[in-house]
C-alpha cells in the first residue's frame, strides 16, 4: 500500500516522496531476515542433532532439541496472543484453554494409537479401564481417525472462542473485565477436565503415547519430523500474521485498539472484527497445542491453569507487543531463562519471572523488540 503513496504525494515538493518506498524496502528485508532466521533454526537444529557426532562440540543433545521444539509451540501461542492483544488491544488471560483443547484433541488420537499396548492390554485407553468403563464415550467416537481429530484441533478451540467471543463482544465487555472473564473460562475448563467423568483422564490427563500414524513416536526420526513440522507451522503462522496485520483488516484491528469509538462512528461494526481475529487466534493456539503434545508426551489439565495463560501474556509483553517477531523472541527468551533457572536455581525462578515482568513494564514498555528498534533509530 505504501508503494502507491508517491502518486498521492506527487507534486508535493516539501515531502520526500522517496521515503515511503525506502521504508517499505527496509521492512521487506527485515522480514526476509526474520523468516531466514526461523528457517535456519528449523534446518540447523535437526542437522546438529542427527548429522553431527555426539563427541563434537557442535552436537545438540536430544534434550535441547525437545526444548526448542516445545518453545516453538509456545512461540506460536505468543504470536496468537500478539494478534489479539498487541494488535487489537484485547488482553486474553485464558488462551491456555485453547492451547490445551488443541492438545487434548491430538492426545485423544494418540491414546487410541496405543492400541492394546497399554498396561491393561485393552482396546480402551488405560484410564477408562481403570474407571471400569466398558465402551468409548460418545465424544471419542471418531478418535481413531487422524483427519477427524486434526479437524477438532482447529474446530473445538475455534468454536469455543467464537461462542464465548460472540456474547462477550456483543455485550461490549472490554478491558480488564474481559481479561477476568477469560481467566474464569480457563479455570472453569480446568475444573471440568479434572473430573474423571468428563472422559479425558482426569488430573493425569493423557500420557505414555506409543506411536503416531502407526510410526513409533519416540524414535529420533519421528521427533525430528515433529520438530521440523512445528518450525514450518511457526513460519507459516508468522507469514499469515504478517499478511493479516499488513491488510486493511489488520489496520482496522489496530484502529480498534487505538480508538474503538472512532471505528464505530466511522461505520465499522467492531464486533465482527474482534470476533474474527479472536477466533483465528484461538485456532492458532489449538494447533500449537496439537504440536506440543506429541513432542512433550503428556497433556493434563494443568495446561489450563490460570498461571499458564498469564505466562503467555508475559512472553508477549517481554518480547514486545505489536511487533509479531517480538513475542516469538519473548517466548524463546523467557522459556530459555526458565529452563536454565529451574536447573541452576530452581527456587528462584518465580522471583525472577516476577522481577522480569516488572522490569519490562517499567523500563521496556515496547519489550525486547522496542530495545532493538530504539537503538536502530538512535
Amino acid at each position: 500500500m505504501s508503494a502507491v503513496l508517491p502518486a498521492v504525494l506527487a507534486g508535493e515538493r516539501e515531502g520526500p516522496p522517496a521515503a515511503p518506498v525506502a521504508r517499505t524496502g527496509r521492512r521487506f528485508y527485515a522480514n526476509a531476515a526474520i523468516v531466514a532466521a526461523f528457517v535456519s533454526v528449523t534446518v540447523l537444529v535437526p542437522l546438529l542433532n542427527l548429522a553431527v557426532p555426539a563427541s563434537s562440540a557442535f552436537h545438540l543433545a536430544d534434550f535441547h532439541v525437545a526444548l526448542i521444539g516445545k518453545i516453538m509451540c509456545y512461540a506460536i501461542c505468543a504470536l496468537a496472543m500478539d494478534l489479539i492483544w498487541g494488535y487489537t488491544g484485547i488482553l486474553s488471560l485464558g488462551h491456555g484453554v485453547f492451547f490445551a483443547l488443541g492438545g487434548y484433541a491430538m492426545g485423544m488420537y494418540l491414546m487410541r494409537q496405543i492400541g492394546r499396548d497399554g498396561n491393561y492390554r485393552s482396546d480402551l485407553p488405560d484410564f477408562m479401564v481403570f474407571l471400569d468403563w466398558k465402551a468409548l464415550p460418545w465424544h471419542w467416537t471418531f478418535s481413531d481417525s487422524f483427519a477427524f481429530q486434526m479437524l477438532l484441533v482447529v474446530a473445538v478451540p475455534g468454536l469455543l472462542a467464537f461462542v464465548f467471543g460472540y456474547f462477550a463482544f456483543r455485550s461490549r465487555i472490554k478491558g480488564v473485565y474481559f481479561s477476568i472473564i477469560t481467566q474464569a473460562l480457563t479455570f472453569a475448563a480446568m475444573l471440568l477436565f479434572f473430573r474423571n467423568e468428563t472422559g479425558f483422564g482426569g488430573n493425569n490427563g493423557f500420557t505414555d503415547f506409543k506411536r503416531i500414524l502407526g510410526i513409533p513416536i519416540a524414535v529420533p526420526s519421528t521427533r525430528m519430523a515433529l520438530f521440523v513440522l512445528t518450525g514450518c507451522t511457526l513460519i507459516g503462522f508468522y507469514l499469515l500474521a504478517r499478511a493479516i496485520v499488513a491488510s486493511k483488516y489488520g489496520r482496522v484491528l489496530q484502529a480498534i485498539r487505538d480508538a474503538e469509538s472512532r471505528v464505530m462512528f466511522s461505520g465499522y461494526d467492531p464486533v465482527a472484527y474482534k470476533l474474527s481475529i479472536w477466533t483465528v487466534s484461538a485456532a492458532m493456539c489449538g494447533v500449537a497445542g496439537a504440536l506440543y503434545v506429541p513432542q512433550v508426551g503428556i497433556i493434563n489439565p494443568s495446561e489450563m491453569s490460570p498461571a499458564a495463560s498469564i505466562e503467555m501474556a508475559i512472553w508477549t509483553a517481554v518480547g514486545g507487543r505489536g511487533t509479531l517477531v517480538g513475542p516469538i523472541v519473548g517466548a524463546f527468551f523467557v522459556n530459555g531463562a526458565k529452563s536454565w533457572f529451574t536447573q541452576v536455581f530452581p527456587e528462584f525462578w518465580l522471583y525472577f519471572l516476577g522481577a522480569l515482568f516488572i522490569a519490562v513494564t517499567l523500563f521496556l514498555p515496547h519489550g525486547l523488540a522496542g530495545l532493538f528498534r530504539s537503538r536502530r533509530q538512535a
Partner: protein
Amino acid sequence: MTPELQQAGARVREAYAKKAGPGSSGGRAASYARVVREGVVDTSHGTILYLDDISVSFDGFKALNALSLDIRAGELRCIIGPNGAGKTTMMDVVTGKTRPDRGKAFFGATIDLLRLSEADIAQVGVGRKFQKPTVYERLSVFENLELSLAGDRRVPASVFSRLSGAELDRIGEVLTSIHLKPLAQRTAGALSHGQKQWLEIGMLLVQDPKLLLLDEPVAGMTDEETERTAELFLSLEGQHSLVVVEHDMKFVEALTQGRRKVTVLHEGSVLAEGSLADVQANDKVVEVYLGR
C-alpha cells in the same frame, strides 16, 4: 396504475426535486408518493435532521428535556450553550450512543435513527467529530484516512481491500484541504492538537457523510488554524449539512457571518434561535450566560 408507471413517475419527481436544489422544501411535489429506498436519505421535504420532543435523563438528571430541533439539508447550523446544556448528549442521541427515554429522531424523512446501531447510523451518512480529537494514534495520517474512506465496512471486504486510483485521489484531495499532505506518512500520535483536530475532520470528509456533527472542532487550535477551519466548513455548506457545537464566539461569528441561524441550548432544550446578534441581545440568553 402499474408498478412500472409508478416507478417512472417517482423518477420524474425525484429529478424535479433534485433540480430544486438542496434546502428547498420540495414544494407541492414533496407530498407526492415516492419509492422508499432503504439506507438512502430522503430530503425532499428539505429537512435532513429532525428531532422531536427528545428527553434523556441520567439518574434523574435531565440532560435533554423535550428537545426539538430541525436542520435543513445543506444548512450550516451553530449550536451554543453553557456547560451542561446538553449539546454533547444531543450528538450522542443522533449517533446512537445514547438512547432517549422518549422522542423521535429522524434522518431525512424516512430513516429512524432510534432503530439503528452506531455503525449503521454512520453508514447511512451521519459523521461525528468528538470533542477530544480521536484519531488512530499509532497509524499514519494516510492510514487514518484510508480506514475512514467510504466503502464496504464488512470483514471480508477489508481482508482483500486495495485502494483504487479514484480513492487515492480522494485521499490526496482531503489531505490538501486539511493541510496535512506533507505529513501523510507521519504517525497520527505525533501530530499537534490542532493537526489532530484537522485529521479527524478529514476522516469525516473522506467518509462522505450527508450530515456532519462537529463537537468543538477548533478547541486547541491557533487563530490561523481556526480561520482556515472556518473556511473549510463554509466550503462544505450546500453539499453537506453541518451542525457545529462551539464555545468560541469568534469562530461562530466567522461561520454564521451574521446571517446563518444559531441555536442556544440551555438545560436540555432550545432557549433561543436566530442570528448570532439576535441571540446575543436576547435577555434570556444573557441571563443564562452571565447568571442572575
